[in-house]
């Protein structure tokens, strides 16, 4: 990646973070947000020792929530504020996609980390095997990557296809479902259920999905971004 691309992408990323972290304690807000998300999920499982598979499902529900909060930051906000044109004038589509995807990656990964840590510490997880930390972490990283890619792309489609909402919906569903399928499998293996190899394959599949969607995303995006 040439330095000009790096500069552009980081400028856009910084812009997203600045808008989010405005105010005296922006970072605190984001942390509190992840904490609240986690508590909401843990409450539903409170008291019971739960199976690793189920824990994986819960973690994924929370991750989906975090991504659907990140979603509007992507592109719908630009169109609603009317700042989309400014961005179109100033930035190349690839940089725009990457800047937004990185921001989404950060938010989802933050939630994933807080969530994963707290789940391990606080919820009694009953798996066939003990927890495999690196696999768990790997699956969370893969999750953040894949979700960020998928969500950014969906966001772009939804924003552009403003009056074709159903179309956007039908597009984003097939994008998200494989992520979910791979993700739950990877995470549950990390937490100690299921076959380890399947989990590893799933996590790696997830990472690949993330990398692929982040690699193809910009091209698809470029096609819808400029009218």
């Amino acid at each position: 990646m040439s330095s000009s691309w790096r500069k552009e992408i980081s400028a856009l990323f910084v812009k997203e973070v600045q808008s989010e972290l405005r105010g005296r304690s922006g970072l605190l807000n984001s942390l509190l947000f992840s904490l609240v998300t986690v508590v909401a999920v843990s409450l539903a499982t409170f008291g019971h020792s739960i199976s690793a598979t189920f824990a994986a499902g819960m973690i994924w529900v929370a991750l989906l929530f975090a991504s659907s909060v990140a979603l509007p930051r992507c592109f719908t906000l630009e169109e609603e504020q009317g700042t989309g044109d400014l961005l179109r004038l100033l930035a190349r589509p690839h940089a725009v996609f990457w800047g937004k995807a990185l921001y989404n990656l950060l938010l989802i990964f933050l939630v994933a980390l807080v969530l994963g840590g707290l789940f391990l510490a606080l919820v009694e997880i009953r798996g066939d095997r003990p927890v495999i930390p690196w696999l768990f972490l790997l699956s969370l990283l893969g999750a953040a990557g894949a979700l960020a890619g998928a969500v950014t792309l969906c966001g772009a489609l939804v924003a552009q296809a403003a009056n074709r909402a159903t179309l956007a919906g039908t597009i984003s569903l097939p994008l998200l479902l494989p992520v979910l399928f791979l993700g739950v499998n990877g995470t549950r293996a990390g937490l100690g259920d299921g076959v380890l190899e399947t989990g590893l394959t799933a996590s790696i599949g997830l990472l690949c999905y993330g990398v692929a969607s982040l690699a193809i995303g910009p091209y698809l995006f470029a096609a819808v971004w400029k009218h």
Partner: protein
Amino acid sequence: MLGAEGLGKRYGPRWLFRDLRFTLERGDSLIVAGENGSGKSTLLKLLAGLVSPSEGTISLPTGDARTSLGYSALDLNVYPHLTAIEHLLLASRLRGCEPQVQPLLERVSLTRAANQRIGEFSTGMRARLKLAIAIQAAPKALLLDEPSASLDQAGRELAEEIIKDQRERGACVIATNDKAEWRLGTHVLELA
């Protein structure tokens, strides 16, 4: 430098304009006039690449459109939660040009409000910031949509000066509803 060849735009069945052709050289300044809803802003957006033409072609100045074109319009919005300085920095990093934050802010008299969020700006201040962003990279073609709307006397003089400077550097297209601004142009294109 900046030109159009058989340019046309339609929305649905309705043509806003068809078969426009012009070429602007350095020193030229084109006034685009016409009633409300006649397509002035649409023409400027076409030239800026924000809208795609229904027919015909556009020839742009050589080089990356992000630095060789400047665009400022009444209905272009800026980020309400960023400050003026942050806007200029963002724009310069994206275009890969010098930020020139201080000189630009001084030029458009926004030094005092440099660190205020744009959401707290008045309309005139916002128009000034948009002008600053438009001329930041010393573009070869400058597209201004209603440049003097919402600017005060000093602001209008500033806009005039910017247009004059621009004509030394390249070409200029100005869409306006105000007959008084016709004197800023060397050519007039009236859309019906």
